[in-house]
């Protein structure tokens, strides 16, 4: 718990100091002293009551919805107060990165309650939330107590998806997609991948497992048969990568709307997202956290010929040259 004077409190302190000086400069007067007592008592009680207003309040962050960079995030909190006495004027702040943001304000809290708040738009990235800060200056608004609650949560600001303009052949997205959209998959073996809990034993590729000394399973085209296959080569400039991620994000969301799969391949990353596969939120998180690699870094894994290769500039140039 920390305390600091508010702006009103700072002005009040100057006022109190001026009155104190006047009191000491003039002969003792009972009425003067009484008024001074009143101000002093108000100051003390303001600190004490603000502390009590915040003391028994418990709070937890229920979740923050991923949002495109620069857009507001929806935040859900749950606050709970012990005892029957209501609490007033509690501000909820989230602290992460270099910033501290007020996400919700409760004028009145009785028992427990869920609060929906808004977090201002953030830059692209995965921001680890350091702590939830509860603040209150009730009742007199001259001293503000704050209470910090450590959190392990993150705010995902994924790249803003490039606008999808269906039917506009000149749009960047249309140029990138071209005719590379795969119309579903079949039961042909598309490749192998390490065994994961839940995989059927019938799909274990025993020979390959013997060669690799670890269990690997066959991956059918049905599983990896995404509507889109993306291959992002991160050996590019930050601007190029941003554009690539925006395109990828647009495709990811489009795939999500169409309830189809999307295969995302990049250096050190290969995953299928969509129904029955990894959730879209995980893809958004990867897109939010993706960073460019130096030119000497290894290339991305080999992708099918039909895969959409990003960054877009390289692909757009290829398209432009026929």
């Amino acid at each position, binding site marked *: 718990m920390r305390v600091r004077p508010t702006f009103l409190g700072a002005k009040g302190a100057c006022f109190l100091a001026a009155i104190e000086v006047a009191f000491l400069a*003039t002969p*003792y007067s009972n009425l*003067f002293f*009484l008024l001074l*007592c009143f*101000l002093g008592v108000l100051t003390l009680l303001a600190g004490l*009551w603000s502390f009590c207003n915040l003391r028994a309040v418990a709070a937890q962050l229920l979740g923050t919805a991923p949002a495109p960079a620069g857009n507001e995030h929806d935040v859900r909190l749950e606050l709970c107060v012990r005892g029957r006495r209501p609490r*007033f004027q509690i501000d909820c702040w989230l602290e992460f990165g270099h910033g501290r943001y007020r996400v919700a304000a409760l004028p*009145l809290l009785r028992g427990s309650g869920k609060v929906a708040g808004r977090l201002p738009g953030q830059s692209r990235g995965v921001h680890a939330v350091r702590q939830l800060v509860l603040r209150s200056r*009730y009742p007199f608004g001259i001293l503000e107590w704050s209470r910090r609650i450590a959190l392990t949560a993150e705010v995902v600001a994924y790249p803003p998806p490039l606008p999808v303009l269906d039917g506009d052949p000149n749009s960047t997205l249309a140029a990138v997609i071209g005719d590379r959209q795969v119309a579903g998959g079949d039961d042909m073996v598309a490749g192998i991948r390490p065994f994961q809990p839940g995989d059927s034993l019938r799909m274990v590729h025993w020979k390959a497992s013997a060669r690799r000394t670890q269990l690997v399973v066959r991956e059918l085209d049905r599983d990896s048969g995404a509507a889109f296959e993306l291959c992002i080569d991160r050996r590019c400039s930050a601007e190029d990568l941003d554009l690539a991620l925006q395109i990828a994000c647009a495709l990811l969301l489009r795939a999500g709307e169409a309830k189809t799969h999307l295969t995302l391949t990049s250096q050190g990353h290969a995953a299928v997202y969509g129904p029955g596969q990894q959730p879209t939120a995980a893809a958004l998180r990867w897109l939010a956290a993706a960073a460019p690699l130096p030119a000497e870094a290894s290339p991305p894994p080999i992708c099918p010929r039909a895969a959409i290769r990003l960054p877009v500039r390289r692909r757009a140039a290829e398209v432009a040259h026929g």
Partner: protein
Amino acid sequence: MVEALRPFLLGLVLLNLLFVQLTDSVQTTLLLPLYGLSIAAPWLVRLQRHLLYRVVWNLSVVVIFGLLLRHALTTGLLHMLEDGLLLAALCQVHLLNNVGTRQKPDLMFFNSFLIAFITSFFSQDLGWSLTFLAYAALLLPALQLYTVLRDDRVTAPGTIRAVLRDSAPRTLVALAATALAFAVWPRDFQRPGWLGLAGSTMLQVGFGDELRLDRSGPATLSVREVMRIRPPQPDRMLVPTHWRGATFVNFDGVAWTTIADGANTDGNATDLPWQRISPLQWHRPSVHPAEPLEVRLHDLDGQRLFLPLEAGELQNDDEHDAALAYAFTDGTVGWERQFERNYQSQPVRYRVRIAAADPRRPLRTSPFAEQRLRLLDPAELPEALIALAHQLRDLQPPGADAATVAESCRSWLAQNRHYALPGTADAAANLTAFVLNSGGGHCEYFAATLAALLRLQGIACRVATGYLATEWDADKHEVVVRRRDAHAWVEVLLPGRGWITCDATPAADLAVARASATDSVWDKTLSLLSQWWHAVSAFDGKTRDALLIWLIAAPGDALALLFAHPLETTAGGLLLCGVLLLRRRLRRHAPAAVLALRAAARAAGLRPAPGETPRELLARATAAAGLPPPRLAALVQATATHEAARYGDGTAGR
């Protein structure tokens, strides 16, 4: 700013205007427009969106500010207070009419307190204190609402109601804490201040060893009890009104003082001497002594035993023989204690018998002593006083005796000069102004003037100070004398008759009239409030010490009281236990399944969160590591029982 705060701000501004009005420094006609503008503020504020209105309003405010400033600068300090208070009030009205999105109410809060603070210097009366109580009761909810409603948030009416409900106990606690801090905080009550304005400190009305006429400034009237006098029968008329503690003989134009120590011998005696009959008894030549008056002297500052002029016998009732009395030549009696440490807070008890002077042993004063009682240097007197003496002398019939002259001068003063407490607006600045009737005077002015007038006409007299005993406590059949009853009057020496009391102060008659006033509920309430207020304004170090002693001794006294009444204590304790048990039963009046669930949760070390269902509680208990299996099993059982009762017949979960 939310509209909910506006009524509170309006109330604060109206109270500020009332504060200003209470000072009587500003004419009501000047305040009336401000009252009107404040009350109309909720409607006027809607016009703020019109540019023309804003221009006209702000220009008007600037013009009025300019006029007030010019008035203050041209008329000097005399109207500085009036203009300053008007400026502050106008500022509040202006802020009230502009508070909203562009103007926050912070400044209004500070300004309102400043007005209350400044006006406290000029209207230290009950009206101010009651207004301040109302102000505090409005200020705290306003601050709380402002804290909740800041940032222009739209708040539900339920929230505002909850804030107001919450503010009531907080206001009471704040006021109680203020009173406590005021009562117990150690401080120097005589502190002169850095600016050295000791001359303008409040005068404490009370008994003093000298009578100075050059003191000015407002006076505080303390209700602290000085003594209580119990007559033999419950009749107030048996108690003389004037109880003297000291007399003053020498006058230098500014102050009346006692005779020099060297002259205080038996040869200079001006009164019948007190003779010691026993260590505790004193007697003067007198006849027909009346039944004794029992006196308890509580205020021990004066070191005097206050006695009426007609006192014939004095008996010290101090149980421990701690008070030793000694008589002066003017008939007054002093006292001191041997064991002050032990008996410091105990009142001095003595009995007085009123008696007639013994005609066989008339008062004989030496010519030298009588000469001192007539001594007055006209060069040290104000010319106006000498002129008044000539004027009164011309009014006397030829050959009038001393008693006639004294009564004539007394009645003339009582009828032609009026009473005013020092420091009030009507009070005369000095003795000359009082004699010229430029202002009213207090008892010392009346006594000093009358004594000077009599001496200028060759009549032997002196000024006496003490207390006026007029307040009758009908419940205890006693006369109560307080510090505010301190008084000064004149004693005239009549040849062959001795001393008589001659009081020219009209307030003395008023005090008698006030003491016999009706005892209506309204009067009692006003009296109580007035006493409370005087207790605040006249609070001093001794009162604080007494209060602290009382507070420290209170628990012990309460215990002693309980042990002194064992039957009542036992009955009260049983009653209290019964109430607590009944309350507990009512609280525990919950279905058995609910109680069992609560007990199981308590045994498991869990506390149900508000709104948490038993099933959720059970899930939490299951997730918690280290919970002993028997307790978990008990909780499972209790949950199942509760659910069966709750959803089986629908009675358990109320």
